[in-house]
C-alpha cells in the first residue's frame, strides 16, 4: 500500500512566531520544523506499512525550499521519500492555493491513502484535508483516533461534539488523524543519518497544475482587545462570598 502523508513546515515555536507587518504574513524566515501535529500521521503511516510488511510512505508538503530540512524529520522517522511543492507564486497561498498544490502533487503520486494531522501548528487551520479530498474526488474522514485498514477500505473511529462515530470509506481515501491516535517514535540516530540520502523531490507550481490566487486577504493587524484589570484576592474564609458579589455585580448570577 502506498501512503502519502501531508505535512507542514512551520516556524519553530521555540524561536517565537510573529506576523511580518510588511507582508501581513507569518514570518517564515527563521528555522522551520515539521508541525508537531504532523508526526502523528507519519507514525500512523509507518505503523501501517510495518504491519503489512510492504508499501511506501511518501511525505508531501508545500512551502519554501528550506522546508526540505524540516521534511527530513519525517524521513528520519522512517518515511521513504519526500515531495515538496515549492514556487515563488505559491507564497502566501491560502486554503485554496494550498489544496490545489497538494492535490496536484497527490494526483501524480496516486497513493491508496492520504493522511493529515489534526491541525496546523501556526495558522490553526483544521480543514485542509476536506478541500484536498474535494479536489481529488475522494472520501474524507477527519479527527480519527483509531484507524483500521482492511480489505480495500478504511474504518475510522472519532470523537465529535456529540459522541463517537465510526466511519467507513473505500480506498483511495483521505484521513485526518487526531493526536490521540498514537505516540510518535523519535528518529533513531541511524534514521537521522540515513534521512539525507533518501529521495527528496521538488515540484514547481506548473508541475502541479498552476498556482491559484488566494480567495482571502489580510486587511489589518490589531492588538487584542484589553481584558480589563485582573483582580487577585487571597481567600480569608470569605472567598466564596466575594466571588458571588463579583458575579452579581456583572449580573452573572
Amino acid at each position, binding site marked *: 500500500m502506498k501512503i502519502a502523508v501531508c505535512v507542514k513546515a512551520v516556524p519553530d515555536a521555540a524561536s517565537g512566531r510573529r506576523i511580518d507587518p510588511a507582508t501581513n504574513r507569518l514570518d517564515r524566515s527563521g528555522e522551520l520544523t515539521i508541525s508537531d501535529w504532523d508526526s502523528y500521521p507519519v507514525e500512523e503511516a509507518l505503523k501501517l506499512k510495518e504491519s503489512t510488511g510492504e508499501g511506501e510512505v511518501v511525505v508531501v508538503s508545500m512551502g519554501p525550499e528550506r522546508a526540505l530540512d524540516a521534511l527530513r524529520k519525517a524521513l528520519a522517522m522512517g518515511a521513504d521519500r519526500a515531495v515538496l511543492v515549492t514556487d515563488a507564486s505559491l507564497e502566501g497561498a491560502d486554503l485554496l492555493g494550498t489544496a490545489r498544490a497538494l492535490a496536484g502533487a497527490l494526483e501524480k503520486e496516486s497513493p491508496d491513502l492520504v493522511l493529515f494531522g489534526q491541525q496546523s501548528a501556526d495558522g490553526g487551520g483544521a480543514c485542509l484535508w476536506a478541500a484536498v479530498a474535494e479536489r481529488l474526488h475522494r472520501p474524507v474522514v477527519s479527527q480519527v483516533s483509531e484507524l483500521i485498514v482492511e480489505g480495500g477500505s478504511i474504518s475510522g473511529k472519532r470523537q465529535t461534539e456529540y*459522541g463517537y462515530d465510526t466511519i467507513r470509506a473505500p480506498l483511495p481515501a483521505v484521513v485526518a488523524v487526531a493526536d490521540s491516535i498514537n505516540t510518535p517514535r523519535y528518529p533513531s540516530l541511524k534514521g537521522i543519518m540515513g534521512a539525507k540520502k533518501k529521495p527528496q523531490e521538488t515540484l514547481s507550481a506548473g508541475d502541479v497544475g498552476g498556482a491559484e490566487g488566494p480567495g482571502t486577504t489580510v*486587511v489589518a493587524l*490589531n492588538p487584542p482587545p484589553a481584558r480589563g484589570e485582573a483582580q487577585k484576592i487571597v481567600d480569608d474564609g470569605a472567598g466564596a462570598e466575594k466571588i458571588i458579589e463579583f458575579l452579581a455585580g456583572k449580573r452573572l448570577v
Partner: protein
Amino acid sequence: MAKVLVFLEHHEGAIAKGSLGVLSKAATLGAEVAGVVIGSEVRGIAASAGDYGAATVWVADDGRLTAPLPQPRVDVLASLVRDEGYDTVLFAQSVLAADVAAGLAARLDAGLNWGLVDLTADGTGKSPALSDTVYVDVGWTSAVKLAIFRSGAFDATSSGGTAEVKDAPVSLEDFSTLAEMVEQAHAEQHGPSIEDADVIVAGGRGLGEPEKFALAEELAQALGGAVAATRAVVDAGWYPYSAQVGQTGKTVSPKLYVALGISGAIQHKVGMQSSNVIVAINKDPNAPIFEFADLGVVGDLHEIVPKLTELVRARRS
C-alpha cells in the same frame, strides 16, 4: 454581502445554538438571510430558524443525508449557492462544519476564513491569531465568501420573525456518498454542551483527584453551565476528551468561565481567553491564570467551591 446563507447544524431534533447565534449575527448585517437544514426528517425543525432572523429556510431532506457526514452537505450547499446566487455562506465551528466549509471552498473556488469572532456589514472578519496575541482583520477576494465562527462568538437572539420553508434540491456526487457512518454512539449528556453553554466550570490538576470533578459538576449545575477540563486531566483519564478546552481541544468563549485548580498555561489559555468574564480559584499565588482572570482567588478550591455552589443555589431559589 447581499445574500447570506447560514449552515444550520442540528442534533437530536434541534438546531445547534452556535448555528442560531451565527444566524442572529447575519440578520444584523442588513443582508437577505437564509438558513439551510440538511438531514433526514428535519423538516419539522426548519421553521424555528425564522425566530432567529432567517427569511427563508431551505430544507434538504433525504435518507442519504441522515448521517452527519460532510461531503453530501457540500453538494447541497454548492447547488444552493449556484442556483440561488448566495454570495456568502456562514458556519459555526464544529467538526462537521469545518469539513463542509473546506470542501465547499474547494468546490466553488471560494475563500474561507476560519476562527472568526466577528464580521462587519462591509465584509471584514475578525480573526484572533498566534494564540490570540494579534487580532487580524481579514477579507475575501473571491466571488463567494465563506466563514467559520468560533464557538460562542454570537448570542442566539430571538427576533420573533417567521421563515418561509422551501425544499432544496438534493443531487449528490458519486464520491460524496463513498464514506458511510457505521456507528454513532452518543455520549451521555447532562445540561448544555461546552460549545453551547453560557457558563463553563473547568477543572484542572488542582482538583487533586478524578472524583473531585463532582465539585465542578455541582457548581456547573447550579450555574446552569457545562463542565470543561484541561489537557492534563483528560490525558490522565479523569474526564472525557470532548470536554477538553485548549490548544488541542476546543476554543470556547462563554459569558463566564470559572477555572478550578487550573494554572493557566498558554496551551489552555488559547482555548478560553476570549471568555467574557474569567474567575479563577487556585492555591498557587504565582499561577499564570491570575494574570488574565478578571477575578482570581488564591485559596483552597475544596473549601471555596462547595460554599460557592451553596450560595449560587440560594440566589437561584
